[in-house]
């Protein structure tokens, strides 16, 4: 199996879907001639031409609206946001229009749009460029949100997103773009709403998504080596639809849960996951559910402080030991 980067995996997904379905188009700022702000779409303009790979003006509200309109008429646009932080200027399009049209048309109009781009802190780009809006968006019925953590999942989830008939928002991570992993050549999908046990264990369940999965896997190594603790890591992959059963099955096995995410804690994804676990696996819990999130402050610009603000393995280990007490 080829070992490629997360970035290349995303590109492979888009290329294969562009080849498979003539209605798939790529749109966004700098996606074509500049090969993408983070080079995810590199080479696609050359291969598929300016009708399939389209540079847009610097106006998120405008071009996301354009994509939504196109998707209602059967096009499958894959829209790049340079940062998911910029989605906030297109919130009406992303939430009100894309999220509600199928419901408000009585099911007559689908909106098979994909919006993708990086949604992460940790790169010293300041508070307004470091948002992680998966929780905000996933709180709206009608919207699907996925957060791939590995190259394999990035390709499989991107293909599933493009083929889905509802708006699917793919949250990538600039820090993961260069991560390498085994990715099958050719067609496969990772279905939406199916979590993945990235590491099996017996003493503690860590539930994470996006880069927090990688952080948690590193923490799990330390916990095993230095503390003799067997940790299971569940990667949500999809925030919505949420794979409740995989989370619950793991908690029923280990009886202890730690939730790790790069979101701010207040109303974060893990607030929902914690509710789920206590509601449906209460009698299986041997300890209160633990949580590690970003520290609750606007994203700190100072790099060294920002590194502490985000969950890192040492913080996850510390929190895990508390849950294991």
């Amino acid at each position, binding site marked *: 199996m080829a070992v490629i980067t997360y970035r290349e995996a995303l590109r492979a997904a888009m290329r294969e879907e562009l080849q498979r379905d003539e209605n798939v188009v790529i749109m966004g700022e700098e996606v074509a001639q500049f090969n993408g702000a983070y080079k995810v779409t590199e080479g696609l303009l050359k291969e598929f031409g300016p009708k399939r790979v389209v540079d847009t003006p610097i106006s998120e509200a405008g071009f996301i609206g354009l994509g939504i309109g196109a998707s209602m008429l059967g096009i499958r646009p894959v829209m790049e946001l340079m940062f998911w932080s910029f989605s906030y200027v297109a919130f009406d399009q992303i939430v009100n229009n894309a999220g509600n049209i199928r419901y408000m048309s009585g099911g007559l109009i689908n909106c098979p749009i994909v919006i993708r781009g990086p949604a992460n802190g940790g790169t010293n780009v300041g508070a307004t460029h470091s948002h992680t809006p998966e929780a905000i968006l996933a709180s709206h019925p009608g919207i699907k949100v996925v957060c791939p953590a590995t190259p394999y999942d990035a390709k499989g989830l991107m293909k599933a997103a493009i083929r889905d008939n509802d708006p699917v928002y793919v949250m990538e991570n600039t820090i993961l773009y260069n991560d390498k992993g085994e990715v099958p050549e050719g067609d496969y999908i990772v279905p939406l709403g199916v979590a993945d046990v990235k590491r099996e264990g017996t003493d503690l369940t860590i539930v994470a998504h996006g880069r927090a999965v990688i952080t948690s896997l590193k923490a799990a190594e330390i916990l095993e080596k230095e503390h003799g603790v067997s940790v299971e890591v569940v990667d949500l992959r999809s925030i919505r639809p949420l794979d409740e059963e995989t989370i619950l099955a793991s908690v029923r096995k280990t*009886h202890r849960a730690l939730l790790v995410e790069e979101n701010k804690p207040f109303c974060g994804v893990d607030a929902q996951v914690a509710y789920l676990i206590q509601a449906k696996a*209460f*009698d*299986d*819990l*041997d*300890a209160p559910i633990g949580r590690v999130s970003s520290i609750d402050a606007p994203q700190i610009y100072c790099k060294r402080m920002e590194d502490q603000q985000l969950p890192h393995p040492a913080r996850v280990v510390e929190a895990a030991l508390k849950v294991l*007490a």
Partner: protein
Amino acid sequence: MAEIIDMPKLSDTMSVGTLVKWNIKEGQKVAFGDILAEVETDKATMELSCTVPGTVLKIYAPAGSQLPVGDPICAIGKAGEAAPDPKGKPAAPKAAAAPIPETTGIPCIPAAPAANAAPAPQSDASRTSASPYARRMAEKAALNVAALAGTGPGGRVVARDVAAAASAPVSAAPAGPVNVAVAPPADGKGIQPDADVPVGGMRATIARRLLESKNTVPHFYLEVEVDAAPLMGLRETLNKRLAEQGGETALKLSVNDFILKASAEALRRVPAVNASWAGTSIRQHSAVHLSFGVALEDGLVTPVIRDAHSKSLRDIATDAKALIGKARSKKLSPAEMSGSTFTVTNLGMYGVTGFFGIINVPNAAILSVGATIKKPVIDANDRIVMGHRMVIGLSGDHRVVDGANGAQFLQALKQILEEPTLILI
């Protein structure tokens, strides 16, 4: 709107529950989670916790009642509200034979099984800090979380504590399911079929209560040999005269009747043995309620003779006879089997020469009476003569009774039995 609380179905096989104890009174305010009552099922004594906050309007069934599942036990509503008519359901306690109505939505949930039937103030399981998983494990293992030492944060009982308790050697051997493959007899002719005989209510109660006693009560043992000749002589004389007077219906005194009477008298002399361990205190009892073992085909029961300290030998013998009759026809009420302060067991009729019973909690001691046998003894003049000897054992709860007062009790008992005319007055 007042809600009627029904006798809940606390186990799959439960059809009748016994209200062992009410923890609430009419007019009392109750909150969610309060323990309303203790209910004995065919399996265990369970605590009923409240899921309907309010004021207790009416208690339909007194403590000691046996009620079919679904029968109303109490009503909870707003203070001052009239207690609802229990929907024409029989409110009076009654026997187990009634059909079991389906319960829809049990308003009370079983808490952890009560630690034991002792009147001692038990640490309340519902207030023990324990993880939900630990509670569930404990319930499965029939362990009381309140009795476990928690090693989690703030002393919380967590799964590892329950696992450790469940695998502790003290309970593992008798309590753990036996799963040993035993080959059938080579010739195919066994003494009985190979079978797993299901454990019935009585057997389960015996198993639970005696395991609990043997595991939690520090037993110590004393033994005394009694000259039973005077007792045998007195018994023979009395029974002869009673028969002459009463004919066919005459009362016939058993050896056990004398021992019961003598025990009550000995307890009067050494009242320290007529007491119970109550956790932070020793509860001494003013009355002697004597329990005695009655063997049945499928187990045993221990009916109680009330106020034995103030009853004559005839009263005790009459009571014992009535209780044995009820025990054999399985008509003993829970009230007739509870509230004892001392227990007497007797295997003399089987020729057993001596033994030590397991203490019937919350008693402080149990008397074990062996057979009267002829054997050589050395008399006051140092001559070897034929004697009628009876060996009596006492198992004591060392938390309540020490060797010395246990011995004083046996000394008193020996004196009474060897000069039995004393018990006639």
